[in-house]
């Protein structure tokens, strides 16, 4: 072919292979540059768009960095009190059993103040999906120690590193709730590379499909970076996450449905 296509000839609508889903609003995301929350939001919204669930989905936003999720997700949303998203989602799902209901929570919300709500919603086997973004720190309030902070990790409230003798060990919520008979599908994924993003999207799809089949609670943990809280550049924080977070929070399916 002799004619070399120019940029203007390639960038026409019929050649478009990927662009941002229309279920994300035009508001600029309030997250720091490089934060995994943006990718996690996009994956959930893309899945809802592909499954045609926009009118039938109710999301529950948490307290934390993602408190403004209802500003970015163009679906019905409800904001819950700190940690109470699974309880609010329980009520919504019981009132509207035909709706798809999910919560989107961070580790300060789900694993600290909301541990009770999370465990009991999982134990009751509520037919909802929980998306848990774990970055091992309280990002919104300025980088304090969270239950999921790694041993030895420096934060604003553990300036000499987390001392497990006095501060305990990181809480593996995902392994914990996988023990409960009420959960149906429990997995841990990440969003730092294209391969990881594709796997996470498959996990999100499965969570919504199982909910449609009334199978029980699906729990998807997304290990993410917090470059501002960790005081690193986005690329450094992703490398640090691979080297330090993944050995403690190994990726993969933890509980798969029995065939």
């Amino acid at each position: 072919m002799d004619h070399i296509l120019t940029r203007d000839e390639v960038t026409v609508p019929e050649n478009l292979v990927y662009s941002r889903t229309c279920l994300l609003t035009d508001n600029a995301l309030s997250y720091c540059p490089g934060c995994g929350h943006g990718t996690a939001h996009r994956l959930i919204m893309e899945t809802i768009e592909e499954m045609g669930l926009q009118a039938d989905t109710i999301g529950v936003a948490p307290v934390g960095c993602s408190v403004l999720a209802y500003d970015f997700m163009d679906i019905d949303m409800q904001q819950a009190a700190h940690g109470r998203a699974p309880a609010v989602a329980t009520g919504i799902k019981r009132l509207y059993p035909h709706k798809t209901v999910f919560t989107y929570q961070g580790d300060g919300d789900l694993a600290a103040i909301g541990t009770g709500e999370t465990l009991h919603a999982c134990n009751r086997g509520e037919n909802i999906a929980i998306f848990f973004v774990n970055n091992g720190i309280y990002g919104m309030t300025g980088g304090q120690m969270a239950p999921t902070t790694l041993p030895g990790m420096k934060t604003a409230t553990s300036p000499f590193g987390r001392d497990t003798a006095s501060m305990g060990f990181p809480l593996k919520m995902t392994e914990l709730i996988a023990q409960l008979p009420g959960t149906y599908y429990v997995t841990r994924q990440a969003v730092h590379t294209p391969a990881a993003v594709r796997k996470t999207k498959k996990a999100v799809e499965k969570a919504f499909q199982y909910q449609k089949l009334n199978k029980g609670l699906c729990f998807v943990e997304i290990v993410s970076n917090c470059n501002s809280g960790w005081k690193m550049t986005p690329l450094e924080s992703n490398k640090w996450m691979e080297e330090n977070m993944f050995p403690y929070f190994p990726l993969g399916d933890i509980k798969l449905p029995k065939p």
Partner: protein
Amino acid sequence: MAKVKGEIVVNTERCKGCELCVPICKEKTIAMSPGLNSKGYHYATSTNEDCNGCTNCAIVCPDGAISVYRVRLD
């Protein structure tokens, strides 16, 4: 083998300059622009003609700032 030609279009106002897309691009197409957007970030930009439209940069972009176009050259 069918050849493909890709192009990316970066929404420069949405880009926050996190640079996650730069090492992801196997064709080394993406670099950070010396210019700034209205929020003061160096935005990502396409610097050569090698893009094959693999969409990896758009998939990792936390802000969904990248649209990818691809055409087959048969």
